[in-house]
């Protein structure tokens, strides 16, 4: 079987012996996960849920590939995965951004108008990048070669029947160990380093709003109130600097209900969430599918799940990458455009229009 790679506890695992189970069409995501929980309780499972896996009404937009919305890999055997040393001669694919600078900046301006009229406080706006790809260029070799560029904390390579997902996420969506459930939302980005970031009141507000939103979502499954255990900490990546915070609760609930209550994640939707999701559907012309959904491991009642950002999907002869920014009232359209490109700066990019 095509190799699967995923973060698991303190290591990265490689498996060629697993069973892939897709959520059947028409089956509710919560019910599907309840069945998986019952049937494979003690197994290590890698799960992948789309951005809109728990939304009841779906908007019909461009789909770059066919997604079941939710899939689970039941792991039978695995070994440790160690990334290779960088191959300096690797022929990386060249991407086109599927929007223009003017269009993106106009969308940012429209969203700022909505914010100033009180419609929401923050919304996450994203765009897609596309590359043609040679059939002999395997997903595994792409994954290995991008691995060093992104230095991910929560990587995954998930082979599918008609598509493969390559995630290089730096962001922890949810982690549950015993009764403690935590989230580490990332907000605040600076290509010029941590000093510029930490002093910027716009970047502070952008993260604070999401911390309150994550507190809210975790409180909906909590037995003790949400506590902010870290705020505005530095996350240094090879291509950018972020700030993140950490929120914790205790809970007696298990993964199916926790995901139902908290998806999609606050940092990649917006706040208030319902209204932000409507705005995302209005502005983005494509369906995010796996992008900004979640990927991670699940074993008995413990799990660790990323936010599927800094991620690619390969379908037949195309490779897609996605990036986005949090828009708030103080956003500058030009700066948000630069942030979008910064988050794609590890890609070979054709000149943007």
């Amino acid at each position, binding site marked *: 079987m095509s190799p699967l790679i995923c973060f698991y506890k303190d290591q990265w695992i490689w498996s060629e012996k697993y069973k892939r189970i897709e959520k059947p069409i028409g089956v509710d995501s919560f019910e599907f996960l309840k069945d998986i929980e019952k049937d494979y309780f003690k197994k290590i499972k890698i799960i992948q849920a789309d951005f809109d896996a728990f939304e009841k009404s779906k908007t019909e937009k461009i789909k770059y590939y066919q997604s079941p919305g939710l899939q689970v890999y039941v792991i039978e055997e695995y070994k440790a995965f160690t990334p290779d040393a960088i191959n300096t001669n690797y022929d990386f694919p060249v991407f086109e951004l599927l929007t223009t600078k003017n269009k993106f900046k106009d969308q940012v301006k429209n969203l700022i108008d909505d914010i*100033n009229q009180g419609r929401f406080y923050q919304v996450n706006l994203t765009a897609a990048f596309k590359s043609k790809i040679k059939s002999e260029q395997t997903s595994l070799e792409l994954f290995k070669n991008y691995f060093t560029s992104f230095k991910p904390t929560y990587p995954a390579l998930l082979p599918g029947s008609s598509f493969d997902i390559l995630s290089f996420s730096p962001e922890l969506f949810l982690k549950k160990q015993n009764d403690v459930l935590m989230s580490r939302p990332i907000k605040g980005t600076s290509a010029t380093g941590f000093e510029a970031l930490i002093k910027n009141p716009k970047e502070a507000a952008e993260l604070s709003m999401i911390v309150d939103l994550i507190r809210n979502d975790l409180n909906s499954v909590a037995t003790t109130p949400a506590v902010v255990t870290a705020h505005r900490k530095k996350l240094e990546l090879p291509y950018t600097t972020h700030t993140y915070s950490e929120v914790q609760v205790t809970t007696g609930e298990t993964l199916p209900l926790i995901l139902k209550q908290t998806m999609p994640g606050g940092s990649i939707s917006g706040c208030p969430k*319902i209204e932000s999701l409507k705005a995302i559907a209005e502005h983005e012309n494509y369906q995010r599918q796996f992008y900004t959904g979640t990927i991670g491991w699940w074993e008995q009642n413990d799990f660790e799940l990323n936010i599927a950002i800094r991620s690619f999907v390969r379908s037949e002869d195309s490779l897609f990458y996605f990036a986005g920014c949090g828009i708030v009232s103080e956003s500058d359209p030009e700066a948000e455009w630069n942030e979008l490109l910064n988050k794609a700066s590890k890609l070979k990019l054709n000149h943007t229009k």
Partner: protein
Amino acid sequence: MKTTPNTHKPRLNALIIDHDDSFTQNLKSWLEQKFAVQVVNAESFKENQVSADLVVLSAGPKSPQDYSQSLNWLKKNPQHPTLGICMGMQLMTLAEGGTVTPYSPVLHGKTSILEFVISDFPQFPVARYHSLECQVTPIFLTKAKSQDDNITMWVEHQTKPWLGWQFHPESFLTDDQGFLISYLETWLESKK
């Protein structure tokens, strides 16, 4: 499941009328320090449901004019003890013929020091999430304003048991050391 504290005094009940906000579970958790709390969405809210000691009108997206059901409830139930938070206070303002106008620059996820105008309370930072501001009629006492931009932050109705807070007591950015929940409890007691 939450355990009920073993006290002789029965817990007071609070009903949150939720205006599609994303901080409602934080508000619920904050109120649970003193109250047994139920949440009902503004859309599905029926007036005959209210047996709670305190009604809490939540914050929420858009503007108070978008929630006519909550506005009508205030007008029809003027003697029910009610706390209005952010949009909740804006609804109270409209119900008494005041105005709610756009405020620039909008403040989302920011803090201001609360400065009391008529009480000798301690100063502390409160969280703000608003793009509208209230001009209340004189039937409301303005108890506190924001220190930096002098916006009405805390109002109390002179004849009706209505308390309005423009700031968000449930936010992690509000650092009041437990003052607000104790104040709410005392205020509610005084309205019985």
